[in-house]
């Protein structure tokens, strides 16, 4: 291809034609514009007059220039100019196009596919066999070489994956073919990349396509000092960059929305950035993920699991603290243990219950007021966790002595016991190992934890089940009872160090964690995960979108413990028995590195400029120039002024104003249709049918106006293709045998109309000759029309349908013909008639269609002079039938506009009965 600057020409020899332009100039210049012949009787007066000037016998220079430009544009256009011509790469033999296919390439995936498409086109020119492979999604068997155009068809199936390639080098090493490689890289380094490069180089030449592009990854958020720390890393570290981080979660209405947004700035040259988010606990617990705003990549999304959730714990102590004795406060150790991992709430019990905390701790509280106790019980039954600690007050009270208190897990013996004190026998008791049923199983009880006093549980048949920790002598230390959805736990010692050294030990904190009073550390370790199976709840794709993971198989805990996403462990949210775990693309200390290529590898950027064929544009320009030339020539020749000028001006105006006029027309239509209630009829294209429908709706509108409070305006014909349907509550559609089917767009409009509560009344107007469903031409046409419509199941109008009583009481629905075959949306099958009630209780929506063939419009139709246009029946009976037809029309419009209001009125007697009237 011969090129001139950025423009190449497919047929440069044609450009020689440009040399002919000067000749054309001379030729055109010599020819004056042709004269017009006019018949004009006044010519007698002109005889003998001579022209003053003689200049216009030559074409003016600017018109010449215009024509030459047009000709030049044609010549250049046919020479096949191409902007940014791509020189074909050529090459022979097999070709493998390798894509990294990781999440880092997701934002520019389309550009990569375009690049692959271009490469495939070139390969098609060079007759090469090609395979396109994504490293994250390698086939299991051989390299699937195929013709390039076949790959072009399959290209859209290639999708990036939200993980890094595994060990593609091994896979390629196992293949025996030789091939050239085009490697479309995402720009991120990954483990095994250099191995793969070496392997590929043994197969043939390697060319790398890579665009220098910054990749940003969002690290999992962590909780520190009451604020959420969000950090991100990037590569390559470049100039200072501002990004925003959005925290997304469910709002109280259950709708996912951004809950908070914070800016984050990468300092120039820094690879990492950090920002802090301070959120109220209520909001914080709602966060499900963080995103870097505006980046479509899995690396820019960080899912949160339970790690960020902080439980709200309310602490209530029975006694006021004695001033100055901080260490003796029943709540001191609880505060110390819980404050790093939970949000503590203080206050009175009523206030606390309003805040609906996760846990309420009652430390040595014996007596609760009746209302408080009831409210607390309700809270527990709704899923709250009540943690009680014993103490002198509990021991001294009669709570739970004779019967089991609903707010205590066990009955208590009065007084409790003390061991190992100065006045008692025995030694302080140590803890027994935790049994496998206990939530504390796995914790080791330190030997230095001793108990000197405790409250004792009354032996009961249920006691053994409720003990979750005991002392070495078998007496219960912690008991638990499930109530409703919640649980009540009693620790039989005090929450301070008065009765035992438990609060002083690390075990106390661990036990609180196990009881889910405080939040656990974020990542469970491998031993904890071993043997468990986790269910993928939500799965992240490479673009950072969350999909439902319900159909994916469960994942073994061991795999989860590694935390590296891969084909078997897509990043996402995994649910275990009692908690959720997030697997993110970027881990806590994942480092992003830019891919470095050795100097021997040729690296090409992505084709920034695409080939643009200029031929079409040039030929269009030539055409426009010629149009201008026509107008200019007419002007020169005097044909624009003169007797026919108005025609030319009108044509020009028509061209200029036509679209605008159409828009104005649509506006006028909308204004007309919405200023009043307007009944619409569908234009069938048959003038007579349309006129009758118009007249029919006019008659119905008049009847409505006279008899009801509906005062419709003049009816409008509706062109399904052009007009908006949403303005009409009701459309009458006379079906003719030869009307065209609506277009796809029109069907979309119709279905939207039907779903949004509009009603269409189909009238096949053939009830005199055909019954519903029999094959009249109109019936078949109706079937064809309705095939693509969203019409529900139908039934003949039942005798208790709301149409029979929405204004008049009717049982027949005649039009010009009196057939009973009128069909409406079927009532739900589970509605049965209640004994003694005249109607079934049908409170469904307005029927979207009424289908019949009674030619209602003809019965309703009035001419412009107010006379009925068509006879109905004979004599008085006929007039009666017309009256019923009009009443049916009134009922239909009432039904459309008031819905099942009349159906609801069925309940009025009941309501009056209940009101005692």
């Amino acid at each position, binding site marked *: 291809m011969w090129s001139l600057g950025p423009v190449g020409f497919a047929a440069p020899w044609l450009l020689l034609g440009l040399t002919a332009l000067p000749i054309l100039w001379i030729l055109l210049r010599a020819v*004056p*514009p*042709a*004269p*017009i*012949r*006019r*018949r*004009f*009787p*006044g*010519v*007698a*007066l*002109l*005889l003998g*007059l001579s*022209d*003053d*000037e*003689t200049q*216009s*016998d030559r074409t003016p220079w600017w018109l010449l220039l215009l024509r030459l430009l047009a000709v030049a544009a044609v010549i250049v256009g046919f020479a096949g100019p191409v902007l940014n011509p791509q020189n074909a790469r050529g090459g022979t033999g097999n070709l493998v196009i390798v894509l990294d296919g990781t999440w880092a390439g997701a934002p520019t995936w389309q550009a990569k596919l375009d690049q692959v498409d271009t490469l495939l086109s070139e390969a098609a020119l060079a007759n090469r066999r090609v395979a396109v492979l994504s490293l994250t999604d390698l086939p299991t068997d051989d390299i699937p070489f195929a013709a390039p155009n076949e790959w072009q068809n399959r290209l859209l199936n290639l999708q990036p994956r939200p993980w890094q390639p595994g060990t593609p080098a091994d896979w390629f090493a196992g293949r025996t073919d030789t091939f050239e490689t085009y490697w479309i890289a995402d720009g991120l380094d990954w483990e095994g990349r250099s191995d793969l490069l070496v392997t590929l180089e043994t197969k043939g030449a390697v060319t790398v396509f890579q665009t220098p592009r910054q990749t940003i990854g969002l690290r999992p958020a962590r909780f520190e000092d009451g604020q959420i720390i969000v950090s991100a890393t990037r590569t390559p570290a470049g100039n200072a960059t501002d990004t925003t981080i959005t925290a997304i979660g469910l709002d109280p209405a259950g709708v996912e929305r951004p809950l908070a947004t914070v800016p984050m700035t990468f300092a120039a040259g820094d690879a990492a950035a950090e920002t802090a988010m301070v959120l109220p606990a209520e909001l914080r617990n709602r966060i499900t993920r963080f995103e870097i705003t505006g980046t479509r990549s899995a690396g820019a999304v960080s899912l949160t699991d339970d790690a960020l959730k902080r439980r709200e714990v309310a602490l209530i102590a029975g006694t006021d603290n004695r001033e100055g004795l901080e260490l003796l406060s029943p709540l001191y150790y609880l505060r110390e243990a819980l404050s790093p991992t939970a949000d503590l709430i203080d206050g009175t019990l009523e206030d606390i219950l309003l805040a609906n905390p996760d846990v309420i701790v009652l430390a040595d509280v014996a007596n609760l007021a009746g209302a408080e106790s009831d409210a607390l019980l309700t809270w527990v039954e709704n899923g709250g966790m009540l943690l009680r600690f014993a103490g002198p007050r509990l021991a001294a009270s009669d709570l739970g002595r004779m019967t089991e208190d609903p707010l205590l897990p066990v009955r208590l013996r009065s007084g409790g016991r003390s061991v190992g004190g100065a006045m008692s026998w025995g030694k302080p008791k140590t803890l027994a190992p935790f049994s496998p049923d206990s939530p504390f199983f796995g914790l080791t009880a330190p030997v230095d934890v001793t108990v000197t006093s405790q409250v004792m549980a009354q032996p009961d048949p249920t006691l053994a089940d409720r003990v979750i920790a005991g002392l070495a002598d078998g007496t219960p230390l912690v008991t638990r009872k499930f109530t409703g959805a919640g649980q009540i736990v009693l620790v039989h010692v005090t929450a301070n160090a008065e009765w035992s050294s438990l609060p002083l030990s690390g075990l106390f904190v661990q036990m609180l964690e196990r009881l889910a009073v405080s939040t656990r550390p974020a990542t469970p370790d491998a031993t904890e995960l071993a043997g468990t199976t986790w269910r993928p709840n939500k799965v992240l794709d490479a673009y950072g979108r969350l999909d439902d993971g319900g159909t994916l198989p469960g994942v073994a805990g061991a795999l989860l413990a590694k935390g590296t996403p891969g084909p078997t462990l897509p990043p996402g949210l995994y649910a275990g028995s009692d908690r959720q775990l997030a697997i993110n693309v970027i881990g806590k200390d994942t480092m992003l590195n830019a891919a470095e290529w050795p100097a021997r590898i040729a690296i090409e950027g992505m084709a920034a400029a695409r080939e643009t064929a200029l031929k079409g544009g040039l030929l269009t320009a030539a055409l426009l120039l010629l149009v201008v030339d026509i107008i200019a020539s007419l002007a*020169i*020749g*005097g*044909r624009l*002024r*003169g*007797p026919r*000028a108005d025609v030319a001006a009108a044509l020009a105006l028509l061209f200029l104003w036509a679209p605008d006029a159409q828009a104005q027309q649509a506006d006028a239509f909308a204004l007309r249709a919405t200023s009043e209630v307007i009944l619409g009829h569908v234009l069938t294209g048959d003038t007579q049918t349309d006129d009758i429908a118009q007249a029919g709706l006019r008659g119905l509108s008049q009847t409505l106006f006279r008899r009801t409070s509906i005062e419709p305006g003049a009816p409008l014909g509706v062109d399904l293709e052009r007009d908006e349907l949403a303005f009409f509550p009701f459309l009458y559609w006379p079906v003719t045998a030869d009307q065209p089917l609506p277009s796809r767009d029109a069907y979309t409009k119709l279905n939207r109309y039907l779903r949004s509560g509009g009603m269409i009344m189909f009238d096949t107007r053939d009830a005199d000759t055909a019954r519903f469903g029999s094959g009249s031409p109109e019936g078949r046409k109706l079937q064809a029309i309705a095939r693509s419509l969203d019409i529900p199941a139908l039934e003949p109008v039942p005798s208790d349908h709301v149409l029979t009583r929405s204004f008049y009481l009717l049982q027949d629905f005649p039009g010009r013909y009196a057939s009973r075959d009128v069909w409406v949306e079927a009532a739900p099958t589970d509605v049965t008639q209640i004994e003694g009630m005249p109607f079934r209780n049908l409170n469904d929506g307005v029927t979207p269609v009424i289908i019949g063939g009674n030619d209602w419009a003809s019965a309703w139709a009035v001419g412009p002079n107010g006379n009925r246009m068509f006879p109905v029946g004979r004599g008085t009976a006929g007039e009666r039938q017309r009256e019923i037809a009009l009443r049916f029309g009134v009922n239909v419009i009432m039904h459309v506009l008031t819905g099942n209001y009349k159906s609801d009125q069925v309940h009025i007697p009941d309501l009056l009965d209940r009101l005692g009237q």
Partner: protein
Amino acid sequence: MKPLALRSNAETLAAPLPALLADAEHLATTVLLGDHGRRRAGVGDTFWQYRPAQPHDAARSIDWRRSARSDASFVQDKEWQIAQSIILWVDQAASMTFTSDDNLPTKAARARTLALACAILLIRGGERVGLTGLRLPPRRGEAQLMQMAGLLSQDDATDYGAPDAQGMLPHSRALFVSDFLGDLQPVEDALLRAADRGVRGALLQVLDPQEEAFPFDGRTIFESMSGTVRHETRKAGDLKHRYLERLAARKDRLRHLARTTGWQFQTHHTGQSAANALLWLFGALERRT
């Protein structure tokens, strides 16, 4: 144009006007009975005056009702009423068939309609109407109108028409309708001959709006209707001014001619309402000079 259509058009145009009574001064020699009061006693139907009976009056002419109121005998005189003769000439040459717009009538159609409407009014008023050139001598009655419509509907092949001054009765009235775009000499001759014989009348110039406006531009070849006369110009727009000057000069000459011979002159455009022109004709033929 078909004679019947022409007749009906003309009837429509003439319908709203009162019967046209042309002035009948100096018609003593055309002793044809007509309906024009001469403001003197004579033969007629209308009461003029009572005068004392003279000896030569026949007894049967005495008005006994008047005479009974006094001692003398009275005779009732009638007003002397006579009919006027009007001769029409309508240009039927090819130049009259021109129209610039399909919505406008040709000049010929407008001229014929006007002339025939005039004739209808005159005949209703009891006048005698005929065509120049001995083709149709003045007569009254519906049959005359039919004949006239037939003759007027004929077209002439020549480019420009010239009036024929033959057959004009002395002291009668005449109406010439043409575009007067051809040679003016025959018109002048005809008018002078008419003036010699004491004939008064009206000249109605019927022009197309385009002929008045000359809205042409660019390189143009103008041709007469039969194509015999042609003129080529390269910038028709430049000619407009001079054309309009010439047209104005022609109208001036016609007006001058009319004034010297005691005629009326008026220009009518086919774009205007025909009724206006008819009103003017009504006035012009009624005028006493």
